[in-house]
């Protein structure tokens, strides 16, 4: 079993590396470069999510429907990956879900309140990817974004793409 602080440090280093890589090739960063960084981090998370879900659903029964999958993500998946359950799940029953975590694990060490709020997106991109990757391997193509109004609380919005 690995220790959580090791993961936290690794995650910080990954974020720092991706941003540094982008910056050194360009000098100054504009919004487009930031978007590239976010998408790189998201992509890394996606692959991790895909792998994780394969391991985590090995012994679970198959899912009835989309809502069933989302419930699994909020309870079992979140507990295994982010060490607590999602506090609140909302949906409009048209493929949009909002998962609220009041103490998101990667933000708790950073601040409680609005300090460093502008830094939050880069520390959430990876996790968004993890969730999207997990859903993808369960057969749901989605777009996952995160929104923070005050740390360490965080809302993930999942929009399922209908084919």
């Amino acid at each position, binding site marked *: 079993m690995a*220790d959580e602080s090791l993961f936290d*440090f690794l995650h910080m*280093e990954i974020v720092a590396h991706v941003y540094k890589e982008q910056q050194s090739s360009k000098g100054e960063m504009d919004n487009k470069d930031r978007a590239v960084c976010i998408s790189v981090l998201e992509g890394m998370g996606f692959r991790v999510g895909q792998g994780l879900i394969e391991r985590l659903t090995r012994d679970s029964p198959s899912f009835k429907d989309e809502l069933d999958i989302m419930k699994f993500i909020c309870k079992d998946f979140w507990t295994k990956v982010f060490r607590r359950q999602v506090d609140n799940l909302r949906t409009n029953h048209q493929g949009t879900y909002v998962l609220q975590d009041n103490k998101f694990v990667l933000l708790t060490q950073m601040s409680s309140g609005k300090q460093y709020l502008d830094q939050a997106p880069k520390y959430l991109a990876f996790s968004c990817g993890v969730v999207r990757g997990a859903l993808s391997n369960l057969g749901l193509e989605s777009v996952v974004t995160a929104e923070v109004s005050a740390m360490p609380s965080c809302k993930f919005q999942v929009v399922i793409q209908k084919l």
Partner: protein
Amino acid sequence: MSRQSNRTTDSKKMNSELFTLTYGALVTQLCKDYENDEEVNKQLDKMGYNIGVRLIEDFLARSSIGRCQDFRETADVIAKVAFKMYLGITPSVTNWSPAGDEFSLILESNPLVDFVELPDNHSTLIYSNLLCGVLRGALEMVQMAVDVKFAQDTLRGDSVTEIRMKFIKRIEENLPAGDE
């Protein structure tokens, strides 16, 4: 003693698959970012170093271990306490040099490489090189300059994974690097 320390470490256990897969994603990304394995190895070491200099604080705070008297004690603490706490494994300490300034950590299993297979075109990649950086960084913060490298790696066909550590010197206090 063991009960107390178990409790503090158990409460912070996490899904190690998340860690393993995330590390894999990082190595994959580095292989995309850099052209050759040498550069990837160097980056991993650097990132490990950055982790190590911070991880040592976490370690000292949670393990309540004081200053080590000699390098043998350091080796023991690394193998039996630190590796156990952070990766859940206990490497064995062997191959001491006669002078007692060099030893090897033998890892039976390496949690970083759980689902990993190295492709043929990455034969010089030291996949777990992050660990070397972590050890080097952490020890530097307790005034020990140490040289750390992988001597053997199961990923590259060796029968065991061996990390070789060599004590270089004790770093003088009151002289932070770059401070005249």
